[in-house]
Every structure is written in C-alpha cells, then in structure tokens.
C-alpha cells in the first residue's frame, strides 16, 4: 500500500508544442494506472501551470472549430472531472493582466466537483516539494 505523487509542471504555451496537451493526457492516465499495480497502490497527479504555461488556461479556445483538434481547455476540464488538483500561478496570470474571468475555472457542465485553483507561486513550490517526482513540460 504505497502512493507515488507526481507533479506535472506546464511551462509552455499551448499548440506550438504538443507538450502541454501531453502533460494533461499523461496526468489524466493516473486514473487508470491501477491495472498495473497491486491492490491499494496509487499514483497521483497534481498539475501546475506556471510562466507562459498559464496561457493554456484561457477560456473559449476554438481549436476544434478551426483545426478539428480538442483544445487544451477541454483537457483541463477533463482533469477537473477526474478530481485532479489543478493549480495556476497567480503572479503569472497577473503579469499577463489576466483574471479568473479569463480562464477555465470549473467544468460544471460535465458535473465536475473540483475547480482550478489560482494560487501564489509559493503554494506551487510547496506542492513541488511534496511530490515524489516532477515532470516539466
């Protein structure tokens, strides 16, 4: 009965690199990892958007309409639906003049219970300390 905690840190803006999307899909796969593990063993995934990475959280992305591609926004909503801990760096949002109104906060329409948390960088640093391993995207 052990838990391995992973921190997914997204530093890059969306679309110009596949990385931010792969960060989210890999984090989401923590929900099905038990098939490989023994009973009671767990892998958890926390996600943090920092630096230009916070641009992934912008609302109203029309990637499906223009490129037939699921948006990073929709993957963030999926993460919420699966109860993942999603943090967004407050200082970076402010640097870009963005507020909670500009970004994805909830996925109510899918029945998600948890919300995106806009937090000071110190809390993201604390999360990183607590994790067993970090994955930077």
């Amino acid at each position, binding site marked *: 009965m052990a838990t391995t905690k992973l921190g997914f840190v997204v530093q890059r803006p969306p679309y110009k690199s596949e990385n931010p999307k792969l960060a989210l899909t890999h984090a989401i796969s923590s929900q099905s990892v038990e098939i490989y593990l023994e009973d009671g063993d767990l892998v958890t995934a926390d996600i943090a958007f920092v630096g230009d990475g916070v*641009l992934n959280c912008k609302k109203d*992305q*029309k990637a499906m*309409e*223009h490129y037939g591609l699921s948006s990073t926004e929709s993957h963030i909503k999926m993460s919420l639906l699966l109860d993942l801990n999603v943090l967004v760096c407050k200082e970076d949002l402010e*640097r*870009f003049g963005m507020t909670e109104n500009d970004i994805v906060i909830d996925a109510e329409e899918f029945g998600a219970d948890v919300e995106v948390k806009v937090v000071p960088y110190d809390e993201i640093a604390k999360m990183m300390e607590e994790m067993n391993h970090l994955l930077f995207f």
Partner: protein
Amino acid sequence: MKLVAFVSDYRMPVDTLDRLKPEKLGIILVQNGVYHATTKENGNPSSLLNYSADYFVLQEDLETRGYTSSDVDSKVKVISLGDVVDLIFNDYEKTAWL
C-alpha cells in the same frame, strides 16, 4: 525589397527581425505569434510591435487560443488565410518564416 515575415512563436529564439531592413516590411502573426497582438506583460505591449512594419494576425489562430478581434492591439489587422495568400502574392516579393 518588400518582405513579409511570419512570426509563429511567443518567445522568439532568433533575433533576425532586428537585422532585416527591407524597404517595406510586413509581419504576419500566426500560431503562438498571436500572443504578441493580444497579451501585455506588466501592462506593456509586446516589443515585437515596435518595428516599423505593417502588422497582421491570423483570425483562426487567434480564436484557437481563446481570443477575438476585440483583444487585438490596434496596430494589428485581423486577417484570414485568403488574405495571407493575397499579401504574399500582391504586396510583398519575398517571405521569411522566423
């Protein structure tokens, strides 16, 4: 020469634009280049908008990233892919993808 440059990144890995001095310069913001048109940092517009150039931004790349025409700096004209084709053929002679 009349040169149209495509900017597709937000953090530019090259400084070629500082060197190019064509008689006529157009800059088309595509892909993550659109952030130069939409995003201020600490209240300041992107320094990429400081060249003496005509600026354009591709509407669908803007919308893909969650922005609309109303988010775009007034220096920058919102255009379609068809407009990009016309600019390449009618207004400039050479292109540069940076």
